[in-house]
């Protein structure tokens, strides 16, 4: 289990989702990914992407104009 930080600052929709999606493809079940974003749209879109693809959102919050989402990667094979 590891925690990766992904800098998605200044990226606009759908780039943060694409970055999260592509990084998760490289991670293992149980790993955590923290995405730091500035596009407010991510508060809807990253959780939606996670629900669709079966990953878990552990936390989402706004801190100093940055949107921070913590995702736990799930095993979605099969």
């Amino acid at each position, binding site marked *: 289990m590891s925690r990766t930080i992904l800098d998605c600052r200044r990226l*606009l929709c*759908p780039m943060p*989702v694409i970055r999260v999606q592509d990084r998760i493809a490289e991670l293992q079940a149980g790993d955590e990914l923290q995405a730091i974003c500035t*596009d407010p749209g991510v508060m809807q879109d990253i959780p*939606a992407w996670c629900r669709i693809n079966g990953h878990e959102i552990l936390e989402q919050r706004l801190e100093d104009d940055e949107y921070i989402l913590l995702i736990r990667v799930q095993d979605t094979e099969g």
Partner: protein
Amino acid sequence: MQRKAVALISGGLDSLLAVRVMQEQGIYVEGINFFTGFCVEGHTHAIRKKDQKKPKRNNALWCAEQLGIKLHIIDIVEEYKDVVFNPRYGYGANLNPCLDCKIFMVKKAREWMEAHDFDFIITGEVVGQRPKSQRKDTMPVVQKDSGIEDRLLRPLCARNLPPTLPEREGWVDRDKLYDFSGRSRKPQMALAKAFGFADYAQPAGGCCFLTDEQYSIKLQDLWQARGNKQYEMDDIMLLKVGRHIRPEPGYKLIISREEGEGKFLQGYRKQYPSLKTTSHAGPLCLIDGDFAEEQIEQAARIVARYSQGKNAPEVELEFRDTEGNTRLLTVPPLPPHELKKEWVV
């Protein structure tokens, strides 16, 4: 054996319906959404205040969630440039290379389909709905040039077209497909109602900024100024923001129209020299291109004209280069009649 289809999901109603029609027939579907850089939603989110009232959701993701399917968003920004620069079948009313775009997307989806062992592709296309890419005579061009041939099924208008492989093989029942055609949206709306979809995106115009006249003019201006058809992601994003004013062929000003845009442009101050009024409230301006020293003053006078000091005898501005070095300028704002119409892109 359950057959698997990959659907091109735009986020609009048609692809939503096409997938649901397939699901009704027991087909397993996953979606692909291609990001070209010009997609209408996305970027524009949340830059301007007036956009903030709109729901900040990505329609393709929202559709996938309604349908209960996986969605793969694929960044094709780099490869797509070739489609925009040299469309074999030309542009539409603006810089939209719709037919080449469709061929390209279906070809990419075919590669994905083959790599992931899916059986066929579906799209939400309707014959006659769009003037160029969805005509009865151009639809076979997409099939042929993309290499997908008869593994491309358009569930909403399939009965107006020759049977495809999934129909001939009995994977799907042709009688339960549709025969929509033309520009009327009524049949789609009725089908949406029948499926219980009440809330869906209804994009006006096309799926991307290339269909927008103003946007296309700005892109053409950029190409002309640079002497070649090229763009980077930042260029095409900045074409969506601010007023664009080109006082000389070599450089242009990108001036924020409101606070949200100003904040957005601030993120570019390491890439572009900028001007900001300091004596009065005013916009942030990026300077794109090559300019001589004396042109900074010209630029400053233009920016001052858009500040609250436009009627003041003098306005003070800060010029900042890409390294972060700053200096102050004091200029008289440009009077309105001196701002030439042809400068405004």
